[in-house]
């Protein structure tokens, strides 16, 4: 299948009707298997959601750690079952709040975490051993993980009991979200350092969340999201093996994160295809022996890009349908977007309604009673196979380029996504794609809804705390820890223990990232339009 990459932009033909002929080549044992059986197309657990409901994990963070802590407590009280930290842009870029590029951005798109002191405030009154925490951060993933670990250490919580996820997916930053710090190759070293450290010290922690979400939000099609995400996964496994790790020692802690978009059947088929592809890759390409290495576990988030500023209440309906696709596709955890997120970060009321949407699906619809209830549908199975084939064409192309890092360096996935983004915008303009309330069924006058406004006070408070930390800490201890970090980066030492020491000394995030910038430099993208 060496089709030119261009043809993958062609729209997949959807037939009026699917029949037994549509899936004539499908063999149940080989291609589907019962839930809990290889190749896990129908799910990784035999008991589905009867055995374990999905985790309702609402992504949240804004302003100061104290403000976000309050939102977390509210989400947990409302029946949320996991936390998910949204960081602000300075934190995501490894800059302290007082850096010139941080001006106007502190606490705006997420919570500001500049040092261990902020991490202490973020989880005040929340038992780290009793919850699972997901942290969406990539460039400075290992620094933030080190802060979480030192917080656990202070409180006497055993690292081996900590459960959660660090996103740590730097490849998709180069491809789509663009919150990178260092060039690709040293960035991959930080990722494999986390793999190695966690394999020994944090057996219940997901060391990476290989993310298609942002790839899709940047404009990719479902097939591109599937292909680039899983190909990223392959790259991480290969780098882990090349770093000397045994595949079954770290692969079971790799998790995934997908978008759940509006094309209902395509989305749920995508999740099923992802499981089948991954099982096959891990068993046949990497010769993993442990079934846990073969099983693709994923978090899903409804599509932020599908939310409209016009008629925002329509977003509740969109989100509910997208969430259903994720549940029918067998997600392990789910975030549902709030109705006001095309306009701002969500208000507390909107965030609660988003959680209620999941609770209604879980408790009222009966969907959770049967594992993979759409398995065997002629359409769903044909679509699952079609998506798998489209992804495998991309695998071939990227393999021929020498892998994903090489493909990224030549701008290949970036260009593919930009092309799809432009086409999808054109489809909206020509009304080939209808968006209710935007290009069809529009309203002339709309009553504005209440939105969250984040003022400048968060920035002032964060600057004040940063000052206080810098005055209070032992500056010689900080300097020594940072020097050791820099030296370790220049040699082959695992950076995690060095970062832990720096965090214990209250080195700031910006200081730790700067130490590594000195060794590795910063990545500057050549823009692809």
């Amino acid at each position, binding site marked *: 299948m060496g089709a030119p990459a261009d043809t993958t932009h062609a729209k997949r033909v959807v037939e009026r009707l699917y029949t037994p002929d549509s899936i004539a080549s499908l063999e149940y044992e080989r291609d589907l298997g019962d839930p809990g059986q290889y190749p896990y197309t129908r799910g990784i657990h035999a008991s589905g959601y009867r055995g374990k409901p999905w985790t309702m994990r609402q992504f949240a963070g804004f302003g100061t750690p104290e403000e976000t802590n309050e939102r977390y407590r509210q989400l947990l009280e409302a029946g949320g079952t996991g936390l998910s930290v949204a960081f602000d842009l300075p934190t995501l870029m490894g800059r302290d709040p007082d850096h010139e590029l941080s001006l106007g*951005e502190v606490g705006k798109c997420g919570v500001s975490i500049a040092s261990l002191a902020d991490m202490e405030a973020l989880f005040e009154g929340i038992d780290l051993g009793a919850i699972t925490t997901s942290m969406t951060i990539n460039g400075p993933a290992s620094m933030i993980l080190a802060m979480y670990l030192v917080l656990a250490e202070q409180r006497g919580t055993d690292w081996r009991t900590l459960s959660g996820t660090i996103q740590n997916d730097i490849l998709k930053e180069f491809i789509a979200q663009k919150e990178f710090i260092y060039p690709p190759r040293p960035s991959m070293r930080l990722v494999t350092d986390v793999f190695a450290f966690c394999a020994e010290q944090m057996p219940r922690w997901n060391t990476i969340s290989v993310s298609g979400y942002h790839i899709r939000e940047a404009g990719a099609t479902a097939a591109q999201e599937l292909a680039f995400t899983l190909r990223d996964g392959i790259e991480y496994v290969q780098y882990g093996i090349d770093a000397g790790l045994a595949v079954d020692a770290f692969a079971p802690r790799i998790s995934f994160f997908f978008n759940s978009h509006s094309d209902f059947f395509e989305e749920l088929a995508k999740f099923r295809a992802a499981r089948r592809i991954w099982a096959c890759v891990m068993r046949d390409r990497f010769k993993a022996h442990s079934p846990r290495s073969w099983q693709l576990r994923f978090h899903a988030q409804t599509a932020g*890009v599908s939310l409209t500023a016009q008629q925002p209440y329509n977003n509740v309906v969109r989100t509910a349908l997208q969430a259903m696709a994720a549940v029918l596709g067998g997600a392990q955890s789910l975030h549902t977007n709030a109705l006001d997120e095309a306009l701002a970060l969500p208000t507390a009321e909107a965030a609660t309604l988003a959680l209620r949407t999941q609770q209604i699906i879980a408790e009222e619809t009966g969907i959770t009673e049967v594992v993979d209830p759409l398995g065997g549908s002629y359409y769903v199975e044909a679509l699952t196979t079609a998506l798998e084939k489209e992804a495998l064409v991309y695998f071939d192309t990227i393999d021929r380029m020498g892998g994903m890092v090489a493909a990224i360096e030549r701008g290949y996935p970036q260009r593919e996504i930009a092309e799809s983004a432009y086409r999808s915008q054109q489809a909206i303009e020509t009304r080939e794609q209808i968006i209710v309330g935007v290009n069809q069924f529009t309203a002339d006058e709309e009553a504005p809804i209440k939105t969250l406004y984040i003022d400048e006070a968060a920035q002032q408070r964060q600057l004040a705390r940063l000052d206080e930390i810098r005055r209070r800490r032992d500056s010689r201890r900080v300097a020594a820890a940072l020097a050791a970090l820099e030296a370790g980066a220049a040699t082959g030492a695992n950076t995690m223990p060095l970062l832990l020491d720096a965090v214990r000394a209250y080195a700031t995030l910006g200081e730790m990232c700067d130490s590594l910038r000195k060794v590795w430099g910063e990545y500057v993208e050549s*823009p692809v339009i």
Partner: protein
Amino acid sequence: MTGPALGPEAWALGPSVLRDMHKIRVVIAKPGLDGHDRGAKVIARALRDAGMEVIYTGLRQTPEQIVNAALQEDADVIGLSILSGAHMHICPRVVELLREKGLTEVLVVVGGIIPDTDVPKLNAIGVEGIFQPGTPMQDIVDFIDRHTRARVASNS
């Protein structure tokens, strides 16, 4: 890439027409720390397809870098893409630097997540086009076309 060479018949028509036939030059910039560049790239392509000359600065440009790019590229328009909420810090600075450099003719537009309450404030400081989520590409093309032509007409 440069615009098409103008033939002698264009010169014969005089400077205002000359300017009119010259491609509109647009600097699309992504200021601040945010990396979400889907909108910036889509609009850059739409403007290019509409016949404008587009220079995309890439990510994380300071207001100084953006205004310098506009100066060097002899831009008619600066288009800023801001989704992070930092627009009230970035837009005033860009406008101020344009004034300092005497580039008062440059049309400044911004697209992104701009709350309604900030629209009049941005208009007041001289950001003429403010494009919120869901704006059709054609509306942005038309706006830029109309406003740059109006300026050329008033200067000739």
